[in-house]
């Protein structure tokens, strides 16, 4: 038997999370799209499509579409709220900080996780970590494609990410 502290549902579905889930931000189409990526969670079939607008190396707009569970939807919504105005490098740093937190590490010093902190409880639910990470892995793919001079990425690296 695996040691697993008993968990309350409210750890997972905190108020802030439920709010993002019910009224997800970043659904509106962007005026222009500089990079997109399609993310897929092979475990449950969830899908996320991220579209980004960039001005220089600064993200000016994020659109999040797809179908996912409450955790995935909330995580994507938080991303859509946080990322615009940040540089690509800052967005990647946030993704990395969030990944660390999801895998049980402390947030890197100086990392600003904002609403994402409300997803901290997810890490007690190993399978659900994949759900929370899907939008961020997809964001990374979009930024990687953009850096590589392409506008589209369809790699689905979620499983790899979450299995670590």
């Amino acid at each position, binding site marked *: 038997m695996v040691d697993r502290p008993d968990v309350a549902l409210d750890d997972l579905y905190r108020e802030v999370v439920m709010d993002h889930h019910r009224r997800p931000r970043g659904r509106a189409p962007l005026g222009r799209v500089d990079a997109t990526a399609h993310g897929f969670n092979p475990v449950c*079939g969830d899908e996320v499509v991220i579209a980004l607008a960039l001005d220089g190396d600064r993200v000016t707009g994020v659109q999040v579409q797809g179908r996912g569970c409450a955790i995935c939807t909330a995580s994507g919504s938080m991303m859509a709220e946080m990322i615009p105005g940040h540089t690509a490098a800052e967005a990647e740093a946030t993704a990395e900080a969030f990944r660390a937190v999801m895998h049980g590490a402390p947030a890197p010093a100086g990392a600003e996780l904002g609403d994402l902190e409300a997803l901290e409880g997810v890490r007690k639910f190993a399978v659900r970590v994949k759900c929370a990470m899907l939008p961020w892995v997809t964001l990374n793919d979009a930024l990687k494609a953009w850096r590589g001079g392409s506008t589209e990425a369809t790699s689905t690296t979620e499983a790899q990410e979450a299995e670590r």
Partner: protein
Amino acid sequence: MAVTASPVVGFDPRALRARFPILGRQVHGHPLVYLDNAATTQKPDTVLAALASYYTTSNANVHRGVHTLAEEATALYERCRARVAGFVNAPDERGVVIVRNATEAINLVARSWGATLAHGDEVLLSEMEHHSNLVPWIMLARERGVTLRHVPITADGRLDMGAFALLLSPRTRIVSLTAMSNVLGTINPIAEIAAAAHRVGAVMVVDGAQSVPHMPVDFQALGADFLAFSAHKMYGPTGVGFLVAKPELLERMEPVAGGGEMIREVRLDSATWNDIPHKFEAGTPNIADAAAFPAALDLLDEVGMPAVRAHERDLVGYALERLRSLGWLQIHGPAEADARGGLVSFVDPEIHPHDLAQVLDTRGIAVRAGHHCAQPLMRRLDVAATARASFGIYNDRDDVDALVDGLAAARNYFGLANK
């Protein structure tokens, strides 16, 4: 709403529970309500005892030893083969290959029988297949230029038999279908399909992963050429599955793996194969789990497969009725309980299956949420995932009631109205 036992059958599922130690477990402070039997079943104490007995009295490598333990281990291993042959009425125990799981059994057929196919030959599958009965054929198609055809499903989740008749042709060399869908529950008319397949000269492969554990299955009466299933879905250990086949077909097939046990004579540059079924069993087999599996068959025989089926038919009928009465669920698969095995897939349009399963878990209820290894079917149903409750011999109507209460509680939790 509590009803103590299925009224229609001659056994008491609640009494059976005492024989499954894990069912005494608490999950999040609630008694475990295990409704994930299509993924894997729980194991009775007799299987655990048989495993322990094997390891504490007879453990040895098989087929080659003179000493007492080796002789006992070989007898126990071969007894599994004989019991399985009897359980599904195989023509001959030489037609029973012991593998890891249903997936390996289907891969064996796809690779070995599949090697007799050529460009332009067709394999006929369906839209409701499990990945294990899709991907081996996709790999075959890539390697040999074989064409895959798929029987579509009707709106109520059955095979479209009209389309089947049109898709079946003299080009069809293999028909491979699930006897019971692990998502829709649909029980397919395998005997009728096998007869049609034979008329065009095709072999009939039956994915029995869901049917063999839950209803009487007679290999010869079905007219199957190959039948695949897993012990772990029928109250047996993980790591053991079976390919049951007509011996004359196995005789004609090449082995897919080489090593100890499967050979007759080996030289540095050449080898000849052992007799069937051994030529398909390379290396030291999963002896202990094979030795333990007959204890699971004993239990199923004791209950009786007709009673198992009647019980699960009753449960799924009750579940369909109660789930429908909630009013807010999409329920997939045939409407009548008679047409389906003991499982039901459903979607709450406002709660993702993952979230639903999570809420149920906090109440001790285990259901599966996801694509159930049937992504093409999910696409066909236009859902990303479903939740699925699947029954076993130890479930009863109380478990269905607990599920229904949990589904209502989930809507409360997520602040949705219970219509």
